[in-house]
């Protein structure tokens, strides 16, 4: 056996298990989602009727779907914006500033991330409780009774209440990611900058931000994927999409259609739209944030 063939064989043997598993558990099911979206099927019987793009046509006129899509987009936007800004800010403060109890805060911020989403749902339904909840009582303490709300009962703000819980659980994770890249920026840059008279804010915008840009880009994709997934889990555990569908996100709507409305094919059509949407969104975000990578 010659060297080249031997190398090819070695590479093949090493990657085969992963490739086979990937095909069986990722590629085939994804293809299956696309295929099933063209059928009308309840989920159990053997009677699958091919209906072409009918499911997508119904979807186009389904106002409930558009509401869930809207909710998902709202969540992706606000959770990403708020979490990113706060995580970078905290990361900068905890790495660059000498704050007392530095490592204590790191732990505190990271704790929500190790909690299961069901626990978070429990915590936040206690926080948002209209009578005994932390939030309303806190507002009452400061005589801000007019700000007290039915956080999960008012249809106009319920989705933001869900967003609040998502931000709370995400900050720690992204903070740690940003901290690691901030910590690897050479100290000498900051020294030089301060000798030149740059203040902290200037340092942050001219040194820290450009040098962790690549890291931020990566996390943007994470934000999109994790918000889509976690918002589903949180909504399922916390409100079940209510009141009257006002916190429904597109994954929970898909789940509802596929598993509780006996419209499995329709659910898969929603799945296809979500799949394309998240791919497309990630690609756009990645494109518009593309900058020359700064090396140091």
């Amino acid at each position, binding site marked *: 056996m010659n060297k080249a063939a031997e190398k090819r064989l070695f590479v093949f043997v090493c990657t085969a298990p992963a490739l086979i598993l990937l095909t069986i558990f990722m590629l085939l099911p994804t293809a299956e989602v696309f295929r099933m979206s063209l059928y009308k099927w309840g989920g159990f019987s053997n009677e699958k009727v091919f209906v072409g793009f009918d499911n997508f046509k119904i979807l186009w006129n*389904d106002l409930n779907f558009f509401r869930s899509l809207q909710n998902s987009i709202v969540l992706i936007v606000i959770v990403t914006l708020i979490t990113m800004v706060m995580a970078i800010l905290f990361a900068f403060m905890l790495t660059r500033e000498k704050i007392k109890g530095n490592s204590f805060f790191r732990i505190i911020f990271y704790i929500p991330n190790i909690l299961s989403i069901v626990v978070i749902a429990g915590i936040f339904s206690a926080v948002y409780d209209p009578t005994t909840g932390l939030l309303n009582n806190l507002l009452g303490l400061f005589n801000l009774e007019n700000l007290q709300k039915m956080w999960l009962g008012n249809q106009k703000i319920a989705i933001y209440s869900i967003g609040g819980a998502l931000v709370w659980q995400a900050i720690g994770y992204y903070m740690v990611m940003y901290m690691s890249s901030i910590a690897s920026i050479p100290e000498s840059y900051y020294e030089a900058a301060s000798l030149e008279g740059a203040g902290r804010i200037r340092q942050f915008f001219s040194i820290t931000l450009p040098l962790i840009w690549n890291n931020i880009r990566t996390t943007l994709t994470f934000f999109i994927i994790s918000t889509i997934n976690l918002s589903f889990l949180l909504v399922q555990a916390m409100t079940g999409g209510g009141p009257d569908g006002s916190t429904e996100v597109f994954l929970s709507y898909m789940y509802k259609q596929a598993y509780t409305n006996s419209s499995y*094919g329709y659910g898969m059509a929603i799945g296809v739209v979500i799949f394309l949407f998240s791919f497309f969104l990630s690609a756009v975000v990645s494109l518009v944030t593309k900058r020359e990578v700064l090396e140091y």
Partner: protein
Amino acid sequence: MKKKVLLAGMSTLLAFGLTGCGDKADSANGSKSSGDKQTVHVAALESAYGKDMWNKVIDSYEKANPKVDVELTVDKNLEEVISPNMKAGKYPDVVLLATGRKLALTETLIKDKALEDITDVFDMKVYGEDVKVKDKLVPGFTETLATNPYNDGKTYMAPMFYSPTGLFYNTGLMKEKGWEVPKTWDEMWALGDKAKAEGISLFTYPTTGYFDAFFYSLLLEVGGPDFYNKAMTYEDGIWETPEATKAFEIVEKLAKYTAPTTVANANDKDFTKNQQLILDNKALFMPNGTWVVGEMKDAPRADGYEWGMTALPAIKDGGDQYAFTFFEQMWIPAQSKNKDAAKDFLTFVYSDKAADIFAKAGAIQPVEGISSELSGDNKLFYSIYDNGAKAGMGGFAATDAVEGVNMADTLFGTINSIVSGDKTVKEWQTSVEKVSDQLRAASK
């Protein structure tokens, strides 16, 4: 050479790993018979009545019928346990799982026509007894849309544990304040104003799902059984009739008397907080079923608390008061491999022995003479029909699945929006009629 051996070894290992699961699944197939013994796979939902009664009933059946081995699955999330196997073609033989559950597995099978016709079971003799099943059953239970979903005279689901539903309240509070339980809606509103003056809300509900029995009773009150059946079979324009409008308006008015925190807690996670309002004397009435007593048994409550249940108030003085009867159903999947054995078992659950075991756990079947088995709070609840309330039964007729359209969400889920003021009753009524139109087009 070595590498070839390595390659071969790895491939075998991989193949072995992948097929490993498949083998196991095969041997776990419940419908194989060992020797001359037949295995019947019974799957039952574990509800407030507990798991134990099922073990006892199975034991007693195996004693009575030595030719059968019963494999039992009892779980609180039965759908999640049995559906993966069902998708893979391994169906249980008998299933106790009611309609109206969140995951709607039973409804899905109805829509897919995947239930076995069990009309003949009611003419069979109860296993080990000399009585036909239909002679044991209380009349009326097998003539509803909840047992004959296609409205064609054929029975696909057997009625099991039933429970009257109605408005639950604290008898102690009513006595203490000297208030009468309202017999008409007008009295209800008067009571609502009196209670309001004392800082008590008239009404609350656990989640909007609990409005099913409530709304069905209300429809029966405004229009009688004929009207009700027309509504349940999606007759054109039925939701825009004066009768239906009356029902919608009553809910609209009730929404104004609903405890303010209700909507915020009306989800599967926090619904007990709404039920707690009754126990704390913060609200007077809630729609519920007899299971609520067990569900809230450890919850703190006001002094002198005592459960009470009443039928819905009548529309006018002397009008009919309805208390909807909710019952769980037992059915045989069309794909079951032991249908005859399954039917035998199905007759056995109505035997005196089984009924006795069930009743001791609080699960009451609609069999003659069961009232002597009742005890405690149940005695009061099940006597509601002796006190003049009429019983309503059955729900919406089955249709083919319509994508994106759901009657329960539209008819009941919207009530949250009515209470919070996000939608008007007119909008609600229009959307219900629209859904009814869409479902009628899809009904058989």
